[in-house]
């Protein structure tokens, strides 16, 4: 069960230790984390997009090969799932 008294104590004890300097330092650190996170997220999204499109392309190539050979339905199903 969630222990509200314990959670409240944790917040109160943390707040009691804060000073103007520690607040400002914390806000600055949070702001830096935000920038880093934004940059990281943007770059990772771009890489993920590239990976996705390249995997779709390679699956399409495999599928066209399968159609020519008319081997089995399985790769076609994979293609359907990916598309």
């Amino acid at each position, binding site marked *: *069960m*969630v*222990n*509200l008294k*314990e*959670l*409240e104590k*944790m*917040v109160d*004890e*943390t*707040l009691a230790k*804060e*000073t*103007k300097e520690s*607040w*400002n330092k*914390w*806000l600055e650190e*949070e702001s830096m*984390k*935000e920038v880093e*996170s*934004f940059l*990281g*997220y943007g770059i990772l*999204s771009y890489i*993920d*997009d590239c*990976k*996705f499109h390249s*995997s*779709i392309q390679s*699956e399409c190539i495999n599928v066209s090969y399968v159609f020519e050979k008319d081997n089995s339905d399985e790769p076609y199903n994979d293609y359907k*799932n*990916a598309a």
Partner: protein
Amino acid sequence: MIIFASKFETIVKRDAYHTQRKEAKQLKKPIMCKRNDAWLGEGFYFWIEEGDAIKWGHQSKRETGYFEIYKANIESDNILDTVFDEEQYNFWKNQIEKVSKQCFQETGKKANIKYICDYLTNRADWISKIDGILFADSPKGMDCLVDGFPYRKRIQMVIYHICCVKNFSFHKEFKCKKPW
């Protein structure tokens, strides 16, 4: 929601839905959200209603043109319930206001959602004591059956510890619709 209670413990089981953009391979576990605007900080986010998970996909998981919904059972007796438990809701609201107020008094700056959530989960270390938080936002009624009447809650859950996520599996796939 199912509650298993014994003399020693109470385990709450909830079905929940996780939305992600479609990738070449299906997921085996949920993806941790690190978005700056994530309401409750870094964690694994789930919707309680499938309909909300689908709407979220159309709205925010559009990068590849398709999105997937995964289903899981969340098992824990240690999730802060700010939606249905009045005491826990009041407690949560008070803690947020207490931290925000002191921050503003000391610095003259207003902390944003992420900062406050980080403060509670990491700086005050709630993450070591709870498995997650259940919360609801205030939809404007656009998605409701009754126009303009926000009678239903849009409920989300953030899970901080993946061990609470059981039976995570692919559920459905959708093609993204035009934005509404």
